[in-house]
């Protein structure tokens, strides 16, 4: 029910549940190409799954199979040094990287440096079930292996980095900023707060209590459904073979906004902001900009 493809197509075969049933019945990945390609990898099916299946991993493996690529299991396992220094770094997505003002504000608030390599090519390959150029992944992770904490603005990186660097603290940008009292206290009860769904759903068990506390403390509404699963806008999706059935971001945003009343929209990801500005007349801002606004 939380799946954006389900929300827009109401066709079970297009969802993870449909793919799983078809695979159990002997379907080949090629027969599920449209369904596999339509997935936003938002992970909303994962917390909804009563069996605890790693749904996003399976979908990524299907994409790899469709590309005749190799499995994610082939990723290098980087060992963290026991004397890991107390360092943190921000890995921005391309939209945040391009917005110098917002990026500067974010770095200043978090008081952490920017990663020299934002790994966008690796993430794109990962999302599309392709293997990055040989040696590229190892070079990317070499820099990260010296870190204690990594803040990512595209939540899909959470999954990817954890697969390679288990034990490292990887959190979403929104969560990192909301941990700052100056940011959190600026949220109003009349705000609609747009969580980056890929970061939230990838880490549901840990993120849900955190965001529940923020919601109860500030009184704001969030893009959570009744299951408390984050509804994605779909703006982050970089699927190259995005199928004809892929959900449209405008419809996703319309679903998020429908029936909700608010005075201001606060988004965790820069990519959502232009889409939200198109959809609403109220002010739209990035969570990093909250620190500049009036407080409660």
């Amino acid at each position: 029910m939380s799946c954006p493809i389900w929300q827009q197509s109401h066709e079970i075969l297009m969802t993870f549940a449909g793919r799983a049933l078809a695979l159990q019945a002997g379907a080949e990945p090629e027969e599920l190409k449209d369904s596999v390609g339509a997935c936003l990898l938002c992970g909303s099916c994962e917390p909804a799954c009563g069996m605890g299946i790693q749904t996003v991993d399976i979908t990524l493996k299907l994409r790899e199979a469709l590309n005749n690529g190799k499995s994610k299991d082939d990723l290098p396992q980087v060992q963290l040094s026991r004397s890991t220094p107390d360092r943190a770094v921000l890995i921005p997505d391309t939209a945040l990287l391009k917005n110098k003002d917002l990026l500067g504000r974010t770095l200043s608030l978090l008081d952490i440096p920017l990663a020299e390599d934002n790994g966008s090519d690796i993430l794109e390959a990962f999302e599309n079930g392709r293997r990055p150029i040989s040696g590229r992944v190892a070079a990317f992770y070499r820099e990260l292996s010296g870190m204690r904490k990594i803040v990512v603005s595209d939540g899909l990186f959470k999954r990817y980095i954890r697969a390679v660097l288990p034990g490292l603290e990887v959190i979403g940008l929104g969560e990192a900023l909301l941990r700052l009292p100056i940011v959190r206290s600026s949220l109003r009860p009349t705000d609609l707060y747009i969580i980056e769904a890929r970061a939230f759903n990838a880490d549901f068990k840990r993120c849900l209590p955190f965001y529940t506390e923020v919601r109860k403390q500030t009184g704001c509404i969030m893009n959570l459904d009744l299951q408390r699963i984050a509804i994605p806008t779909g703006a982050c999706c970089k699927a190259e073979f995005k199928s004809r059935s892929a959900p449209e971001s405008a419809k996703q945003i319309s679903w998020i906004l429908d029936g909700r009343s608010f005075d201001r929209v606060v988004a965790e990801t820069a990519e959502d902001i232009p889409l939200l500005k198109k959809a609403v007349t109220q002010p739209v801002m990035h969570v990093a900009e909250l620190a500049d606004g009036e407080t409660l």
Partner: protein
Amino acid sequence: MPQDNLHEIKGNKNRLAPVTPDSLTGVPRQQTNPSRWSGSGWDAFVAELNSAGVNISQSSAARSIYITDGGGVAMGLPRGVLVARSSENVSKTLKAAQKHRVPVTVRGGGLTTEGECVSYGGLQLDMRGMSRVLHIDSANMTVRAEAGIYWHSLAEALRRQGLDYLSAPLNMTSSVGGTLGVGGIDINSPKFGCSADQAISLKVVTPTGYIVECSEQVNPELFEQVLLGYGQFGVITEATLKIRPFTPIRMHYFYYSSLKESIEDLRFLVEEEIADYAGILTMLDRAINLLVAFDSDEREQEFFSRYRSRLRGHGEIGFTLRMAAHYALHPWKVKEALYLLERKRALLPELSPSAHMQDNKMVDRTVVFSRAVWKFWGGRQMVIPDLATSREKFARAVERGNAVCRRYFPNYTLYCVGIRLFGSRPRYELSCIPPDAQDFAYGCEFEPILGDHYYSRDHLQSFKNEIYDIGVDMGTSYYRFGGMMKGYIRRVFNNELVDKHLRIKQEADPAMILNPDVIF
């Protein structure tokens, strides 16, 4: 069925219909899958629909996902699938199906347990393609929605306007149309009746393909046939339902060691209209939970000031002390005590998760209960035979069913609720509402906790049959009497009543193509 009656129907060529053998008298006790439809006329059917702009998916991937239902016992594969998008394409489909005599099996959430929504070689009509909320009228407190929508999705749309449906099954994937067709029970059914009783009007596509609006005022006969009609008399494509303001609920749990006492207290709560929500959920024969909840503080206060002292159930602390004393005197039952402790430790926090609570009130009862049910009672299959009885027969039926559970499974749960009735509506005839029930009916599901144990199909079927045999013996009804359990229909209802409905069915569905093998 009396042979002369059968001959009378068979003798009329215009009304000749393929009635499956096990809908007749002398049916075998253990049912198996219905036989697969031969496929004669399929290609012409598909070609006609294609030319009319209705595309049937015939890929193996599309068909294979419908192989079974929630019960996981009945297995079948459709020849093709249509995801319904409009009443018009459902209409075209049923007209062509009548002409080419193609069986059409309708599916919503697929939560039947006896294969009622499983297609055995015909067309699978997936209604979930029609899942839009069409109009919310907060002035008149009604909502119009397409009938393939899940209740949970409907709640999602209503909640944003501070509204809620009246009553729906406590799971995430029951569809509106499917529920209206069988009844629908919630823990607030003592107050609002079964879910079907909140329907104000329906758009129905008849088995011959006519699109008809019906309500208590307009086409009332069809309205009454379709509600609790087990999909026999039409496909519900849209429904207008009563709604209400959304209220978080305050939950209370009372614990009993006696099944009989808990049932008597449930009846007291239901018939005196004391609580807004009430139901029994057992953990062990000697650990029974009576759930009581309220929509308002006033109702809750009234309960505690006037009625609480009349309930024999204990609070959590009192019950824990009693159980500790019991197991201290019965040390050889240590395994049972540990099971209970573990259940309590794991289950209780799941019933008040912070994300779904607000000021100590539960805001999403469907999410909380369906997750808890899945986690603590779920398994590969839903095996939940039931008995639906009048108030007089309820306690005895439950006790007899409980004794059957004890013989078949180490652990099981009983889920009991009361259901308000609204007079003697025609829809209650040949339905889950027992014919002898007045004002309130009662239902009990007997749910083995299957866990990771493997039980053979015969074991599970024999268990179900023994529960259903109690119904025959006591003259009750069942919530699930279709599909593989349809052999019980003539045993529990009388031939005259079943023949009456069969004649209506044959009149409405001359080729008997809509949801075959469910009732007839």
